[in-house]
């Protein structure tokens, strides 16, 4: 229903004030990112300046060059570690979630409810809450300061299981029941029917799994202890605490840590948003 009629002055004022609120908030939220990037590309001499300059006199990438080539500070290695850990955790998290969501959403399994609640209950026990226990478990399996030692705990993330499970519940049952009657095995139903039909939910869950693993600090901080194993988040803290980094160095590391997730989010925002809302259905 489209109707174009002249707005009264009161309505115009109302619209303007709503836009002002929205835009001012947007500036307040985006400004810290701008300020972070700006600080990393200004000449080092201008960082401690008591004037607010919203633009730099000339763009200076010295700090990036310095950080990426500094032999004392393996930033490239931190970055690769972050990738390995996040991708590993994502793959493991999503695969286990798909394999569990299919039977739990489709079949009458003795004890199915119990398994479901067991999985969902882990949401109430984030790694931060059981630091000591987690540290001991990983240590006793001789996985302290290894990739697998960080990947396995980070792969525990029941929200993504819920996203996939909730989506599978919306797929009409006739589709897979017909296939079962025709003699298809569960493997075939999973691969040929459930997997292709659940693609949107799986994309969303994958993105959320990657983003949360990339951002996680506590688990790698607890479970790694050397330069060659640190992901970026821990590497940044290590740099600040032990190498007495300057503000500009720390912020450059923060930028390198932030940019990948921002880019991924901007290009995949539709899936990220649908994942957030889908995971939020069951509270």
């Amino acid at each position, binding site marked *: 229903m489209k109707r174009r009629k002249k707005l009264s002055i009161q309505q115009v004022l109302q619209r303007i004030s709503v836009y002002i609120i929205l835009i001012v908030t947007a500036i307040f939220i985006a400004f810290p990112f701008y300020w972070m990037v700006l600080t990393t590309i200004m000449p080092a001499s201008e960082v401690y300046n008591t004037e*607010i300059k919203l633009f730099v006199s000339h763009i200076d990438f010295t700090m990036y060059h310095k950080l990426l080539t500094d032999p004392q500070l393996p930033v490239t290695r931190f970055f690769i570690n972050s990738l390995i850990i996040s991708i590993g955790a994502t793959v493991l998290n999503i695969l286990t979630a798909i394999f569990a969501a299919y039977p739990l959403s489709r079949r009458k399994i003795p004890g199915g409810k119990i398994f479901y609640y067991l999985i969902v209950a882990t949401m109430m026990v984030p790694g931060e809450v059981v630091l000591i226990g987690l540290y*001991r478990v990983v240590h006793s399996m001789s996985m302290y300061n290894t990739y697998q030692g960080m990947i396995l705990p980070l792969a525990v993330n029941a929200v993504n299981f819920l996203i996939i499970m909730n989506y599978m519940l919306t797929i009409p049952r006739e589709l897979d029941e017909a296939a079962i009657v025709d003699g298809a095995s569960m493997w075939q139903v999973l691969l040929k029917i459930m997997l292709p039909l659940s693609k949107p939910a799986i994309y969303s869950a994958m993105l959320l799994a990657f983003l949360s693993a990339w951002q996680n*600090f506590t688990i790698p901080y607890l479970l790694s202890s050397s330069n060659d194993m640190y992901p970026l988040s821990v590497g940044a803290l290590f740099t600040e605490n032990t190498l007495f980094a300057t503000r500009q160095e720390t912020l450059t590391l923060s930028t390198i840590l932030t940019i990948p997730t921002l880019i991924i989010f901007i290009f995949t925002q539709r899936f990220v948003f649908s994942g957030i809302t889908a995971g939020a259905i069951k509270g």
Partner: protein
Amino acid sequence: MFEVSALEKITPKMKFLFNIWRERTSYLFLIPILALYTIFSLYPIIQTFQLSFFDAKIIKQGPFVGFKNYIDIFAAKGFQQAIGNTFIFTFGTILFVLIFSLGLSVLVNISWVKFKTLFKMIYFLPAVTSFVAVGYIWKWMMDSSFGVINIFLAKLGITPGPVWLADPDLAIWSLVIVNVWRWVGYFLVIFLANLQAIPSVYYEASEIDGANAWHQFLHITIPLLRQAITLTIVLGIINNLKAFALVFVMTQGGPAGTTELMATYVYQQAFGTGQYRFGFSAAASMVLFILIMVFTIFSNKLGRTEEVDL
């Protein structure tokens, strides 16, 4: 008939076993997730629970001490302070996040507002940013002499500006500001999805009845968002009671312990002081764990007490 009499002999127990056998592939599919979640989420709780009754140092279990660790933590000044700080941090964050994300989502949802996706995206940016980066950005911006906030305040004539992170009365609230900034967009997205699900008929009908925007907000929007609000509170509690990285990066618990949170306290007692008091800090972990459980169950109950009717 032969088949019928055979069926009659099937006892419930046989049927149960048959169902288990029929679902053997299902169980196979469930093994990976159950193994993973049991070893890396449930077993650590059991370990922590067990350790909380021992005088444990790192990997060594030490002698059994009963409830001594629990008595010690509740007597410890630092722990009491950490509980208080964690409550301020958690509920301060939830309150402001609720107000801002609810208010903004109602505005973004207005039918004539353009660039909805763009606003939503910008508001969401902090939610995909690592707490480590968030901490460093704001630590820099809140610097008392070179931080952009105080430079700006100086322009407005406010000198000297507040020492955001070094003032014992202010530090925890500075962290709340940062945390609210981090979470507003996340909950805005949840509220927006729920708002879009409200049929516009409700608003149109109430308009005919002469209700103004404020009445509509109070009597239509809020009741229909009840579930989403409950969810915000539950997620807010789980995410903020465990908060760790922000404090670690920005204040290290200072000044004078005024920003020490429960999770950072647990970590400091176990690894930070060089004493490796694992038993003591396991007991602190269990208190944190029980708090999360209690608050989650309580707010879930509260949100479900009555169905919304119009």
